[in-house]
């Protein structure tokens, strides 16, 4: 008996439709979030993440409606985020049906937000998203969808974020995102070792071998991907069967 490694499809939305882009740019339509969520729920996804990547302001009513419609179809946990800057905005997202809230830029600007969310919803509901880009021998935190660099060191920020109340880290490699060249296992392993909470690896997934690598060498607790699932490049079930045959504990629903 042991905790299964999780496979998490991610729906990047413009609030209403699922969109795709490389390095957060050049967005294309990739479908209806509710349809995709229903499909992934049935195919054995362990959780689902829905992001409003176009959010420039809190609580767009259209995104809340998307969360509501998506949650309606799910029998697995739902994480939602994008543009959440306040406790009030997080409450609306939870009321709409999200089990966890993910915050990124707003937490960098005001780390106390993590403590406020954790006090209200519990650490297990607070996912700190970190976009990290290699800078020499370290990784630098980026914000605003990966477009803007900060002076923060990713390892230090991850540790601080957990102290402030984050119960999980969603770690995206800015270098690998959209490249389909594999996860940044060195980054993932470094962060996973640095914190006591689970780490979700993101950015660069394409092949089943990439997932195997990030679970074994990268010490990831979960791995997230978007377009390879949307485009049927990789089925969740096929991926999990591959991982299981390679000794990774995964949940295979009947």
């Amino acid at each position: 008996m042991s905790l299964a490694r999780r496979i998490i499809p991610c729906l990047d939305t413009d609030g209403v439709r699922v969109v795709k882009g490389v390095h957060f740019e050049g967005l294309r339509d990739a479908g209806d979030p509710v349809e995709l969520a229903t499909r992934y729920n049935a195919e054995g996804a362990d959780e689902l993440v829905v992001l409003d990547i176009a959010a420039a302001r809190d609580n767009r009513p259209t995104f809340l409606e998307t969360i509501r419609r998506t949650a309606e179809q799910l029998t697995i946990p739902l994480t939602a985020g994008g543009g959440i800057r306040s406790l009030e905005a997080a409450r609306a997202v939870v009321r709409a049906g999200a089990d966890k809230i993910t915050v990124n830029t707003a937490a960098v600007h005001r780390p106390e937000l993590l403590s406020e969310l954790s006090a209200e919803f519990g650490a297990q509901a607070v996912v700190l998203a970190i976009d990290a880009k290699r800078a020499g021998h370290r990784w630098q935190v980026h914000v605003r969808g990966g477009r803007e660099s900060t002076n923060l060191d990713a390892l230090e920020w991850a540790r601080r974020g957990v102290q402030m109340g984050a119960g999980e880290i969603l770690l995206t490699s800015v270098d690998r995102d959209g490249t389909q060249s594999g996860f940044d296992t060195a980054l993932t392993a470094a962060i996973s070792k640095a914190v006591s909470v689970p780490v979700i690896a993101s950015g660069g997934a394409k092949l089943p071998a990439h997932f195997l690598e990030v679970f074994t060498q990268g010490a990831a607790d979960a791995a997230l991907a978007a377009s390879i699932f949307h485009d049927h490049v990789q089925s969740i079930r096929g991926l999990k069967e591959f991982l299981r045959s390679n000794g990774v504990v995964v949940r295979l629903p009947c």
Partner: protein
Amino acid sequence: MKVTLIDYGAGNVPSVERALRRLGEQVETTSAAEQIAAARCLVLPGVGHCAALIAALDAHSLRQPIRKAIESGAAFLGICLGLQALYESSEEAAELQSLGILPGRVTRLPETVKLPHMGWNTLKAIRPSRLLDSIPADSYFYFAHSFAAPASGNESAATCIHGREFIAVLEKENIYGVQFHPEKSGAAGAQVLRNFLRAAA
């Protein structure tokens, strides 16, 4: 049968309500003491911090109504924190008293593993369980917690291991509890809820 769902503001109330409605149940979501005391089938969901749950139960004066419903034979299901609240106290809020319906103390899982215990895990059967009836033994359930109740009480029907062994399925006469989230545990979770409703009927 009508299910009374205790709504004290916990984050997972809407998803538990959705899961019950999906099974075709009539759900009464309430924080009113009279309705809770008179319930025949009572569900206490919970997620987050134990102190918030205890404070909310006290703010609505719900200790006595919950006890009264259980003593009058109502089927009770505690989910996650709702299970933990049945014990005497929790290390998470050491200064507060929990419901004290069962003896024992909720403690933090060891630091030797990643916390929160977050994700899908399997169970270890201790004895035949009504909640787990007709569910394959290797099924996975979704957990999201850092504190847990002891595995050793005679109310343990199944346990789980993460750092240490703890109670995952609680069954004692009309009192039921699950440390995992059946409302988020796919088909297996839905079957647990169905089994509870059958036991309550």
